[in-house]
């Protein structure tokens, strides 16, 4: 028994366990992309076009305002999506707007952008942490729709993994 304990806790045994653990962690990296997605309306109306849309973060709104003619930007409820490797996920953002996300691996994500039943475009981009990827187009009544995506910050992703939603 004593010999077994000494063998198990010997330096070589500890190192062997680490050697087995490290590559599996490296190889298992990034199997799922945790992405948060939100719809943003661009309009000239001072009032939100929908009750559940609120004024967006001023810094991000300013980024859009610098390049687009709309003066007001309202954001909808943020949705969190888990995108497993090579699997498409449809995220419905409004009655007539959805995106299909596909995790291509190595932080690359494919976004297919739809309004109504029509695919407006497809884009493949790297999505580094803390970066936004936004796709958008003109909407009816001369407003604009933007779909903003970014990786869920690591802390929030870990917290959600520990406390799954009921």
């Amino acid at each position: 028994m004593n010999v077994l304990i000494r063998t198990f806790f010997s330096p070589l045994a500890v190192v062997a366990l680490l050697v087995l653990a490290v590559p599996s962690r490296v190889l298992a990296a990034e199997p799922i992309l945790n992405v948060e997605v939100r719809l943003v309306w661009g309009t000239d109306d001072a009032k939100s076009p929908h009750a559940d849309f609120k004024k967006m973060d001023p810094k991000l709104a300013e980024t859009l305002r610098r390049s687009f003619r709309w003066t007001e930007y309202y954001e909808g409820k943020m949705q969190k999506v888990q995108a497993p490797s090579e699997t498409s996920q449809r995220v419905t953002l409004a009655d007539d707007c959805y995106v299909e996300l596909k995790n291509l691996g190595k932080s690359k994500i494919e976004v297919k952008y739809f309004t109504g039943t029509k695919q407006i475009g497809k884009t493949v981009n790297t999505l580094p942490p803390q970066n936004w990827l936004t796709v958008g187009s003109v909407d009816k009544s001369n407003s604009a729709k933007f779909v903003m995506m970014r990786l869920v910050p690591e802390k929030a992703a870990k917290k959600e993994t520990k406390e799954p939603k009921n």
Partner: protein
Amino acid sequence: MNIELELKIQAWLDNELSAKEAAEVATLVATNTEAQALAAELKSLKISVHGNELALTVPESREFHWSKIERAILQAEKSESRAEAAGFSPFSFFAWARNWLAPVAGLAALVAVLIVVAPSSSEPEYSETETPSEDVDVIHFKDPASRMTIIWFYDQSGNPVQNPGSIDNVEKPE
């Protein structure tokens, strides 16, 4: 007189010869002056060694003497292990190094290899956009300040982008 005879005389004095040999040597010593002189010298030496040998006595019993040695050995072992536990012994460092240094060095080498071989978390930037309709065009914006990439799809009949030059790396529509 040869060496063999000298040794025989010495053995005769020590009573190590058989009766026959002893008688022969006794005759030789009686008749040969050289043998007689050697025998006398050896006898004198033997008497002086035996008579003047110092008598050494151990001042303690045999059991007590060996138990002292045993206690000294045990004491030395205890001192060494205490010093190792306190980390003062130079031997403890070498023992630690022998146990840990080689495995840790191997692990460090492995981690270094994995860092080089494993895919980097910061992949090179990649962007590719396509539109299914020829009437739809695309502008690709990047704003490093807010870390935002914007892919804007628009109908070629009307471009709502009013000031694309305000954002870096703008691809203007043709």
